[in-house]
């Protein structure tokens, strides 16, 4: 079967929908493929507040454990979020569908509709001109796209605190969500202290609504964010997909995995397989935009170009996690209603070099299951249960990321005799990373102590390479791929996701991927109009 359309987009994650918007709005026929069911997982919609669930009045097992105990299947201690709401097609199935092999690398990917954005925490930051110095892209274009995406999805936070400019002060931002008491105390101490030369702190910038926006509802401070947002205030690309489906020139084909990309007489031909592999269909289009997520897209680029034994880098932002104890909140109650994901963020300079810094997010531990909190405590379980109950109200969880230059992951791409491209990822961090962690934690321990909070001894966890799920930069713009996202050797094939990023600062990359996809989609729609 062959079908035609002006533009084919592969992937329904944040990059895919962001590239789709400008094209659809300019009247171009768009066909968007994704591997998921296309349906929204609404299991969280009717869930009561987290505190009500924990009072024992709503002993519903599905609320914590998912349908058919699905949340207990991924009990391998990666991220609580991946345990509590494992996305569709996460894990083994994702590896198999992408013929991926990993070594020392924690692969996080999902085949489901909306991709990883279905489990996104919503941390948002615009890269500044310095951070984009390596990008062959005019910064004003990016700035414009940042603004357009921010306007569409809705952000909350603050533009006039110490990190307002760092995260992008020119963006439309709704008021920040209220802080929970234990976090409030830390932030108040920071306010009194007035900052440090190497540590600045501010309200987290999130793709989470504090006011109703474009038909989406605001955060209800349910607290159970880790189990899925009941109001839909946390952005996932489902929201955009639903809006796009209302356009007559937008079509969405679900349950398809793209296996091959080839040149056709007039443009590009793609081969799509059904999820169970039973059905294969062929589609052709003048332009194909790849937005399947960095790893899947990189593999498809390699397949399209029939690369043999090609080795490329894969950027990640190596992460660490630790627990902060707020002694002034010991003995007090857990918050009844609060926002369960990042409330504050911080920036810690690792050296005097610009960009050599740690970007951290601070969560109230109340939003995490006590079982996950106590998982790495070296105590016997009865003690861990008792101690967690005692300390959790005063615990904050910090997640901090290093810039991409600290990672040294390698992808090996090879096309086998069947024309399939195999991908091997070898994870790693650059030499001296352990030392950098030790030094950073030593400094942070001192700083936080000044703010009255202490890093709980033994709580430091270094994430496995890849566990941060911030993947990018396998085929950066300016090499095989042009600044407009077009693959030089295969005109008509565009790449619009993390694959093409040139460098990763410590900040979260999703917002930049969306803005860049918007920019690529916008350029493409202009090109199609002129043609």
């Amino acid at each position, binding site marked *: 079967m062959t079908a035609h359309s002006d533009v084919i987009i592969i992937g329904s994650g944040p990059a895919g929908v962001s590239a789709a918007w400008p094209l659809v709005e300019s009247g171009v026929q768009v066909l968007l493929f994704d591997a998921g069911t296309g349906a929204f997982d609404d299991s969280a919609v009717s869930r009561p507040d987290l505190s009500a669930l924990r009072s024992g009045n709503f002993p519903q097992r599905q609320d914590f454990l998912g349908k058919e105990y699905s949340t207990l299947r991924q009990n391998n201690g990666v991220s609580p979020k991946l345990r509590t709401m494992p996305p569709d097609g996460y894990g083994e199935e994702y590896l198999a569908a992408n013929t991926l092999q990993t070594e020392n690398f924690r692969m996080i990917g999902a085949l489901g509709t909306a991709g990883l954005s279905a489990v996104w925490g919503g941390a948002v930051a615009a890269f500044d001109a310095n951070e984009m110095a390596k990008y062959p892209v005019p910064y004003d274009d990016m700035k414009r796209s940042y603004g357009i995406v921010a306007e569409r999805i809705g952000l909350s936070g603050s533009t006039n605190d110490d990190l307002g400019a760092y995260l992008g002060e020119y963006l439309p931002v709704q008021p920040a969500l209220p802080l929970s008491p234990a976090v409030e105390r830390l932030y108040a101490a920071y306010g009194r202290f007035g900052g440090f030369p190497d540590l600045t702190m501010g309200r987290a910038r999130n793709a989470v609504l504090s006011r109703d926006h474009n038909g989406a509802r605001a955060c209800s401070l349910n607290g159970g964010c880790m189990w899925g947002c009941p109001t839909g205030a946390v952005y996932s690309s489902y929201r955009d997909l639903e809006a796009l489906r209302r356009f007559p020139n937008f079509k969405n084909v679900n349950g398809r995995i793209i296996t091959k990309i080839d040149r056709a007489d007039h443009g590009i031909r793609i081969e799509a397989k059904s999820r169970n592999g039973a059905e294969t269909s062929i589609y052709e289009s003048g332009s194909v935009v790849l937005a399947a997520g960095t790893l899947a897209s990189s593999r498809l680029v390699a397949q399209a170009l029939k690369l043999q034994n090609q080795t490329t880098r894969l950027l990640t932002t190596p992460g660490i996690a630790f627990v902060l104890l707020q002694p002034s909140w010991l003995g007090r109650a857990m918050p009844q209603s609060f926002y369960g994901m990042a409330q504050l963020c911080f920036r810690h300079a690792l050296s005097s070099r610009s960009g050599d810094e740690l970007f951290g997010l601070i969560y109230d531990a109340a939003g995490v299951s006590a*079982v996950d909190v*106590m998982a790495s405590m070296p105590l016997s379980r009865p003690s861990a249960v008792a101690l967690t109950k005692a300390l959790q109200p005063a615990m904050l969880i910090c997640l901090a990321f290093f810039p991409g230059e600290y990672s040294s992951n390698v992808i090996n791409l090879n096309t086998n005799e069947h024309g399939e491209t195999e991908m091997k990822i070898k994870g790693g961090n650059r030499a001296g990373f352990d030392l950098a962690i030790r030094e950073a934690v030593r400094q942070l321990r001192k700083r936080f102590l000044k703010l009255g909070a202490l890093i709980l001894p033994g709580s430091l966890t270094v994430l496995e390479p890849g566990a941060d799920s911030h993947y990018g930069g396998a085929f950066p713009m300016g090499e095989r791929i042009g600044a407009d996202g077009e693959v030089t050797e295969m005109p008509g094939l565009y790449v619009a996701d993390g694959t093409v990023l040139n460098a990763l600062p410590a900040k979260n990359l999703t917002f930049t991927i969306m803005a860049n996809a918007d920019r690529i989609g916008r350029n493409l729609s202009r090109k199609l109009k002129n043609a």
Partner: protein
Amino acid sequence: MPLENPTQHIVVTGASGYIGASLVEVLLQQGFYVTALGRSRGNGSGHPHFRLIEWDLTARPPAEAFAVSARFGKPIAVIHLAHKWQSNSCEEIDENYQATQELLALSRSCGIAKFIFASSMSARHDALNRYGRVKARIEELLFGPGEIAVRIGMVYGGAERGLWGTLCDLVGRTPILPMVQPGTLVQPIHIDETITGLIRLATTHDGTKPMMAFGADEPVPFCVCLREIARYRYGKSLKIIPIPLWLALTAVKVAGVLPFFPARLEQRILGLAGLKTLPSQSDMNFLGLNLKPFTCALHDDMKRKPRPLIEEGRILFKYGFRAEPSCRFLKRYVRALTAIGDPRPLVLPAMVKRWPALMAFIEPFPGKKGGNELQRRLRFMLHIAETTPEAVRSLYDYRGRGLFRISFVVLQTALREAVSFPFRLLRRIFQ
């Protein structure tokens, strides 16, 4: 291989045995007419398509079983499962050999298309036991078209009868099992698969080999089978002590003098010792059988008889929360483990089963990648406990208990850990 005519007639011997009883049940379900040749009725009793014709292995087989009658047409196959373990005669004139010879002659004279003889993986002329040698001699009788000897591996699952019943019973009785050559490889096959295979063999029109191997192509050490049975059925570990063959033979000879010593046990012990494996993949493919792994049946068993898991859930909960769990918790614990396909019960020391608090001395420190079995199960228990009202209050503080109470808890925890910590550390060093 679909059935051509579902109202076909099959003669079965040994219809009340472990395989026979299930075979008759399935045959009748699938619309076959069944004649049981033997002494007892088995599972077919009262079914309109079933009849019993009395026959003892030592007597001449009754010709009426093969004749066309008002209700029963000409049989398409004989499935000969019967075996007499206790013999009064010497091996050369074994009753089983004689009986099969006569049954086969009758079947040939009546022009029955298939004669399927249940042999054994242990069938060999130089087998250590009489059973294996007799089976091997009988196999030689079969040379005509449609005459097939089926060498069946270790049949397991279903009702606890036959060798399977003996094994289930045996591992439940003792924590230590002396055994001849525990590493002997066996080829397990589930009872349902055995029956499907036999029926397909009886009804297929494709040419068959004179000898078929029924069992997993990839053999499993017998001691592994026994350990898994002990674990799934009783939640306990089984120590297997290898004993030399001469000792076992002497012991069996001595025991054989005793009047109550079951003859088949002796035969089975010896049968195992000399067992060799047979490639079976092509035969399984021929019959369209895709054998499930041995543990699958044990997994399924957990859904019906989850007692070891209930006990495990109770012990872990008592350890974590120092209280008895509710039925709701236990039900969820068992359901969740079976739902996620990991219902293999933990093996816990008897002392811990008696006093769960003692687990503090053996609980390992958290490790990478989810830790060991006990840790994973403890974590699992806590996740389930979080969904039950009685435990969730022990996990979260939504009232604020004040600094004094918190200090008390911290102190108490420190003291408790100070007691158990050295033991855990020692355990870790020695592992």
